[in-house]
């Protein structure tokens, strides 16, 4: 029995959002009488952290603390329209819509505060701690709570804002096929190290090391959370998950979580990640989408690492021990066929190499 090690890499350019008939998301913001800001969305938080990041974006734009922001998601019947949280679009699309809505709400907030303080709204700023103050003379200030009360009961104003981000529908140019379906692109690269057991065909992923260029990490811990979770999913697609594992008969397929394989807590590689920030001009505070892409580059990186380890190029997923073993045997049986692949000539595709 021999265990052979290999290393492979892969990179990904990933579009933020997608474009079918245009890609819009809306946000509505209003202040309650207590000076909390409610952001109404029909976007859904499915665990990726949308609510947290949207609260950060709203709080930052308004100049209040995140505790004073309530993100109200989830009712697509009554909420402002959102295309959905998919295509890594949430942070970018909904974030931009919230910035637009928060700017409008903030201008009303400052107008009302200006009346209360008898100063010009242009001279006012929020202090991030629940007050509005005159720039340069912070002792002249008013609590946002009191501004909200005054707006409701004295001035008859709603402190509110409307926001939308729209990436318009893009038609391909007939001549070139060129189109602008997405906004900014995020980038990543993963290096995988594997150990392949040449007797059983089993692959163990030793490490997945990735670098992500995400524009700006609005919540770095959550970006890391996405990257690790995604790397696990990539590993799972690369080596484990399938509804039809070995047998030609569908009835032999997995019927529950005992048979549908995924890497468990004992099958984890060492994860290490680097986040690179290069703010996107059209992103909320420079952020791009980092969601789905995290499952992408680990897969070809693992496939390349297996090739590096044992010279076997498997081109269907998952790369099961059976496929690896068949590859190793074919290689032993007919090395000629595999020779060009052995050369690891990256300029040649596998198909071209076979001819």
């Amino acid at each position, binding site marked *: 029995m021999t265990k052979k090690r290999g290393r492979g890499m892969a990179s990904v350019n990933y579009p933020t959002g997608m474009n079918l008939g245009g890609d819009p998301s809306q946000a509505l913001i209003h202040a309650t009488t207590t000076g909390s800001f409610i952001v109404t969305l029909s976007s859904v938080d*499915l*665990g*990726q*952290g949308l609510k947290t990041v949207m609260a950060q974006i709203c709080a930052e734009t308004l100049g209040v603390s995140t505790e004073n922001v309530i993100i109200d998601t989830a009712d697509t019947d009554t909420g402002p329209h959102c295309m959905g949280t998919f295509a890594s679009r949430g942070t970018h699309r909904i974030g931009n819509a919230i910035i637009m809505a928060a700017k409008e709400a903030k201008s009303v907030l400052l107008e009302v505060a200006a009346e209360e303080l008898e100063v010009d709204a242009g001279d006012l700023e929020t202090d991030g701690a629940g007050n509005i103050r005159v720039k340069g003379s912070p002792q002249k200030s008013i609590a946002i709570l009191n501004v909200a009360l005054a707006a409701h009961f004295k001035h008859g104003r709603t402190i509110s804002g409307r926001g939308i981000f729209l990436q318009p529908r893009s038609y391909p140019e007939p001549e070139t096929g060129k189109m602008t379906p997405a906004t900014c692109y995020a980038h990543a690269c993963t290096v995988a190290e594997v150990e392949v057991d040449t007797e059983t065909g089993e692959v163990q992923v030793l490490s997945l090391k990735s670098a992500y260029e995400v524009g700006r990490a609005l919540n770095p*811990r*959550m970006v*890391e*959370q996405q990257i*690790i*979770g*995604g*790397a*696990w*999913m990539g590993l799972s697609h690369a080596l484990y998950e399938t509804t039809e594992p070995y047998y030609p008969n569908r009835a032999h397929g997995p019927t*529950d*979580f*005992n048979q549908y394989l*995924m890497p*468990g*807590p*004992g099958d*984890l590689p060492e*994860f290490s990640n680097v986040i690179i920030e290069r703010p996107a001009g059209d992103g909320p505070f420079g952020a791009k989408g980092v969601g789905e892409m995290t499952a992408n580059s680990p897969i070809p990186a693992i496939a390349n690492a297996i090739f590096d380890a044992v010279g076997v190029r498997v081109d269907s997923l998952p790369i099961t021990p059976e496929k690896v073993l068949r590859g190793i045997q074919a290689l032993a049986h007919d090395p000629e066929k595999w020779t060009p692949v052995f050369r690891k000539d990256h300029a040649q595709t596998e198909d071209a190499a076979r001819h």
Partner: protein
Amino acid sequence: MTKVPVQFTLNGREQNEFVDSGSTLLAALRDKLGLYGTKAGCHQGTCGACTVIIDGSPQLSCLTLAERCAGKSVTTLEGLTGNGALHPLQQAFMEGFAAQCGFCTPGMILAAKSLLDRNPSPSRDDVIDAISGNICRCTGYDPIINAILTAAEQLRGARKSA
């Protein structure tokens, strides 16, 4: 359906219930008692989301008959926050970003609690072993393992200073 009386201890308090004979502890907790901290994932013993602690050991409440709990002590997630403060495991999960959708979290935390009650100084492999019956589709497990090790350390510290 025949109703059977069951007396057991739930999160430290005496509980008397009439349950449908043959119904599961999971159904009793969620549908009768409204304790939604215990999650129902697969109803067939393969996901671990419904894990509770019965007399000190982690058990799948979807495979446990409610009437079999007579005289036993059951701990659910709700039992960890008795005094209103988060349990060190919950705190560590939160601070370590060990939950995304959160569906596996209660089961993970109870599997971990049962481990730490038995073994206050677990190795990484002990932790992996303890949660190997619990599936997580979001986090990649790594943050969960780290959070459990962090909580173990904190609990040891608290014990030492007590």
